[in-house]
């Protein structure tokens, strides 16, 4: 049975996007994340929203499932998904230089 590949949302971590949020050519996929509602290529490229600001706003509003057309999967866990995407973001950030001990 062929498995449809899913992609993580870089805003909320939801692992169920049907396309990569950015294409090879650099454009947005135009997909609207059903979890947080961010539309790649529109929310960012047209409205100027950043992933982190959108995430914080969505978190402050209670991390509710955004889509009216799709239901959340049974294992939808927004807190875990957000935690994962934030951990990955921290892991990708430049490390602080080590202290020069004993100098």
């Amino acid at each position, binding site marked *: 049975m062929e498995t449809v590949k899913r992609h993580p949302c870089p805003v909320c971590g939801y692992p169920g996007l049907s396309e990569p949020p950015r294409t090879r050519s650099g*454009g947005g996929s135009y997909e609207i994340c059903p979890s947080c509602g961010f539309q790649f290529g529109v929310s960012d490229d047209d409205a100027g929203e950043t992933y982190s600001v959108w995430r914080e706003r969505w978190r402050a509003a209670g991390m509710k499932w955004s889509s009216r*057309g799709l239901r959340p999967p049974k294992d939808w866990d927004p807190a875990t998904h957000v935690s994962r995407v934030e951990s990955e973001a921290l892991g990708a950030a430049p490390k602080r230089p080590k202290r020069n001990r004993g100098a």
Partner: protein
Amino acid sequence: MTGLWFFGGVSARAVELTEGPRASVTGSREVSLEWSTDVSCGSRVQYGTSPRMLTKRAEGAVGTHHVVVLTDLVPGTVYHYSVGTARYPLTTNTFILPALGATPAPDSPTAPSGVRPPALTNSVPAAPVEASRPPPARVTWGNLGSLQDHFDRHGADFSARDPEHYAGLAWEFRERAIRENWSAKRDEDGVVRIYDPRTGGFAAYNRNGTTKTYFKPRSRSYFERQPGDRFDLKTWKP
């Protein structure tokens, strides 16, 4: 596109546009809009100088042939409008009212009597009576599960009345773009992006021609910033 809607057990048939709309000058500051529908219904025009701000309204009689006159217009101005009933807009279009002196008013000494006023320069030609009806959304929309969300987000840009109508408008946008060879780009994934600066409409389509999204960007430079190479739509076979 026809649907049966049920309200409290009584079926209500959707109104369909059968002809027009067609805009004609009836005075130096006056335009008459005419259109026909398949069933008798009210006549309402909402109009303005911006596609997002159709703040003015004019109404006509109930019937199947609709005539609504817009008055106190500014010569030399582009007007955007929607025609339909009080509840349901049917289509949107644009006209340019000629500047004073550019077109003789029908009551001016230079206009022969009995001559029908000339049609306005419509920046977007009205759809022909025999225009193809859009296929159902399950055929034209790329990710059907997402259609409701795209409609919720962008349907109001086009006065779409429901997701099916919104998907149909996106299909009609594509078809008109191909017929009139509008500006388009295609990227290495085969995604085609089309923009109509006259109405501000933007749409993106998958390689197979199904719609990814359809909306009106806030930014005028949005299309220019999109990836892809300029693409001749006449060569596109979705």
